């Protein structure tokens, strides 16, 4: 509250005429208008004398950088005015083509340098449908192609169809079981083809509780690696005497599956206090005479605990296993630490056996936000993973569990998770990973997305 003195002063001065043009009776006294005043002329050069030697030297030393800067400035202006920035931004997203088609680029370093393209179109045949074609080819011979079609035929009812093909010319094999040794690494060519259909029912409106029923026909074949310089399973000392079950033979069959997914995370990039649970059971009918049929089961739970403020503790537990009374399945169809990074700091598909059990734990905290906590930003995280494969449940033990730990940074964009960069340290070395896939909340759109991440069985 202003004092009585100030109010009195205000009243006294307010009685004088005052203007908004900068002249009149001011707190300093009368200020004449410009036409009646001596004007203040500020000297042009305002540096003190002592500054000139220092500043002059600095300007000389800085000159080359100024030249570079001037060149960079011209380049930036040229790129901006030519529309390059605009078109580059479009390339990073979806490009709209005629007839409602959209094209996006794909770049995959994990399978070697390559290029890919996605083409998808909405409302194919009827509203609520979409079709997607994906393709990828790398210089190392990896090939991937898929077609996915999704139709929402009623509210929370959808039908998904998918076809796909994948060629991995230098897939790795380390042996079967939790005790497989890194030094035994050998290579082979793996070729998959599949086609399937899946029905989905949303059981609850408020949150995602979805039942799925699917049928998938798949074939797998294996042979020697493409790269003659790599050790082949057939020639490797570790496996030449006893090749893994199914090597060199084709596996062919149909799997019927039933799954249930409960997801309360609302697909947020930073879920807090929510979780995701998946249960799936399937039966693989082998169509090759000597190949066994088998059951597969998968249990997965993820929970995102809110700690203090918006710090999160993310925990993911997953176990998958297969049961068969007819013998050993094709080795490619065994459970493994597949994409995406179920065992960080270890190679994907490093371990194979009838069962897999793993635990991933992350502590996440924000380190940068563009404008608001839940918007675009960067999170740092510390993680530890521990997992193993097993042929029998008796093999699950601390002796066989393989730990890893590390940290990284997640980029979160307007549409959710964008990318992560991390360093993982495990028993078999240190791995740096730059990836656009998540360890948690990874989408299992499966048929529509070309079964990426792909369970190769």
């Amino acid at each position, binding site marked *: 509250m202003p004092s009585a003195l100030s109010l009195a002063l205000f009243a006294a001065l307010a009685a004088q005429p005052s203007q*908004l043009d900068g002249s009149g009776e*001011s707190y300093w*006294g009368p200020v004449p208008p410009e036409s009646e005043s001596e004007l203040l002329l500020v000297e042009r050069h305002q540096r003190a004398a002592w500054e000139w030697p220092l500043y002059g030297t600095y300007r000389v030393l800085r000159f080359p950088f100024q030249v570079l800067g001037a060149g960079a400035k011209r380049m930036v202006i040229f790129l901006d005015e030519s529309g390059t920035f605009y078109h580059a931004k479009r390339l990073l997203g979806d490009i709209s083509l005629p007839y409602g088609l959209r094209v996006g680029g794909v770049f995959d370093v994990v399978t070697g340098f390559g290029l890919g393209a996605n083409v998808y179109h909405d409302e194919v045949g009827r509203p609520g449908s979409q079709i997607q074609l994906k393709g990828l080819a790398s210089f190392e011979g990896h090939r991937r192609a898929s077609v996915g079609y999704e139709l929402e035929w009623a509210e929370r009812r959808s039908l998904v169809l998918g076809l796909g093909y994948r060629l991995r010319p230098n897939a790795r094999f380390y042996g079967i079981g939790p005790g497989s040794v890194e030094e035994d690494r050998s290579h082979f060519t793996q070729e998959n083809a599949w086609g399937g259909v899946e029905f989905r029912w949303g059981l609850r409106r408020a949150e995602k509780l979805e039942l799925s029923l699917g049928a998938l026909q798949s074939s797998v074949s294996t042979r020697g690696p493409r790269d003659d310089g790599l050790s082949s399973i057939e020639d490797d000392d570790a496996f030449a005497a006893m090749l893994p079950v199914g090597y060199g033979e084709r596996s062919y069959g149909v799997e019927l599956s039933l799954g249930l997914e409960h997801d309360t995370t609302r697909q947020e990039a930073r879920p807090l206090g929510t979780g995701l649970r998946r249960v799936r059971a399937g039966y693989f009918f082998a169509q090759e005479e000597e190949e066994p049929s088998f059951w597969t089961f998968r249990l997965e739970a993820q929970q995102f605990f809110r700690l203090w*403020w918006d710090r999160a503790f993310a925990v993911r537990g997953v176990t998958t296993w297969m049961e068969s009374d007819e013998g050993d399945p094709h080795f490619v169809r065994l459970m493994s630490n597949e994409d995406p990074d179920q065992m960080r700091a270890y190679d994907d598909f490093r371990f194979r056996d009838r069962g897999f059990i793993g635990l991933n734990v992350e502590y996440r905290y*924000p380190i940068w936000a563009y404008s608001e*906590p839940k918007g675009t930003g*960067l999170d*740092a995280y510390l993680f530890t993973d521990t997992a193993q494969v097993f042929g029998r449940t008796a093999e699950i033990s601390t002796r066989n569990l393989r730990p890893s730990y590390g940290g990284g940074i997640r980029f979160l964009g307007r549409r959710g998770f964008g990318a992560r960069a991390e360093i993982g340290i495990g028993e078999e070395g240190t791995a740096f990973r730059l990836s656009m896939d998540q360890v948690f909340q990874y989408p299992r759109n499966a048929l529509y997305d070309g079964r990426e991440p792909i369970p190769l069985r």
Partner: protein
Amino acid sequence: MTVANRFRCASLVFALAATAVADDTLRDTPIRWHEDDRRHVVNVPEERDPNLHWDMFSDSIGDPIARFFDPTRWVRRASVPFGGNHVPSAANVNRLDEVPNSSWFTNRIGLYPLSPESLRRGPGGITPSTDADWVVVRAKTEGVTPGFTILDADGDLFLIKFDRAKYVGIASAAAAISQRIFHAAGYNVPDDNVVYFPEERLVVGEDVKLSLPDGSRRIMSEVDLSEILADVHRESDGRIRAISSKFLDGTPIGPFNYQSRRKDDPNDRVRHERRREVRGIAVFAAWLNHFDTKQQNSLDMFVEEEGRSFVKHYLIDFASTLGTGAGGPAQRFGWEVTVDPKAVVRRTANLGLWEDDWRKVERPEGLDEIGFFEAEHFDPMGFEPLMPNPAFADVTRRDGYWAAKIISAFTDEHLRVFVEEARYQNPAAVEYMVGALADRRDRIARAWFEQVAPLDFFRVDGGGLHYHDLGAERGLYPESLPRYRHRSAANDGEGERADWSAWVESDAPLAELNALRSSTPFVSIQCAVDRGDGWSDPITVHVACASGRVVKVERE
């Protein structure tokens, strides 16, 4: 110590001392309240069109690096313990340490007791005439919010911009309030006002070009108009709310740079980062959370006034203030620059065990028309614009004090009048905004008054030097009973001053001037205040004995 090293040390000491020593010459001449920067200019200066992408790089990386390696700044920083400043003092202040009127700034509420009503309308309060339709002559579709340039029945051009449908009223209110505050402070601003109009009032003119996001252009149609307006919120009576900004008189020649100067403008003699009113924008920006202070939010106009043509400098676009951005409420803006590597490293290292203050800021509950604007967590010295501003980096204590002095002159009644012009739907929003502005005003004023004692407006009257304790008068220290003290010394005006007399304490801001009868032409007086936490640094006032005129004020 070798001769060379002795020379180096002496040079350094000399340099340090040079930064701390001021000009001691005094003159008994009238104070100059107008800067000579409005001489007639024949040729229109070249239009500037700075590239935003380049500015983002140079403001964020290039210029800060250049400033860091400037050796003159190192010397100045080293002189700070000896009373110097980290940068040169502002070059365009008069002997009373005030900013003269110029093409940049006109003293208003900081120097004059202006009534709230006289400031309500800002520079004019002119809105588009409703006598006829508004003809759209240009459309803006890029950016977050659309807008149009319209021609009204009186032949005036206006820029019409809309709020985002999700955040109706926030940005337009912020623009109306902040524009009036900057105008009242003394800056040149456009005439922004909140307007309501029916959609039918807009019609598309002939051959209106529509700029598309890819840079191409085509003729605009009524369908385009409808599409653009489709996402704009409508009131219950169907009217649309917008902020109208009357086109400024004169020829636009692009924004002004916050550093350097226009070399083709003979009136632009002072580097902009050396101008106090440009530096002072930092303090106003902190008060209003005006985080978008890039040069593109300024505009130079080549105007003709009173038979002279010259460049006049404006601040424009105040929609990104008071806790909101063009895209809606902005929580982090104003607390950090867009990317602050030091802050990112700090947060990474502390493993999330420390919470940033900006994350604690919340919007007022139930007031959808208010963004992230409050005073509880406000740090007057912690403001950061989205992109580093070179003039803001050069703010000295005196610059900050000058701006804070003006800010403290805004009474609650002034603020209420400005907030009423925002035309909030909810009366509670008015009360909240007035309260937040007032609270932040007081915090800013106190923060800078602790840097420089707020003893000001010195006048000789009846043998005594009267002055104002702005901190006490403006209610910033209600709990304290201030004490004042002063001392004096004869001064020949050529740098020779007698020894100071003993300090004399008093309860009132008044210094007896017996020494006015001195044989020297001038007398110097030092004044200080104690609010219970020790005596402030003194303010030195020089008075001419013959005329009784205050000829100079030194605050450092």
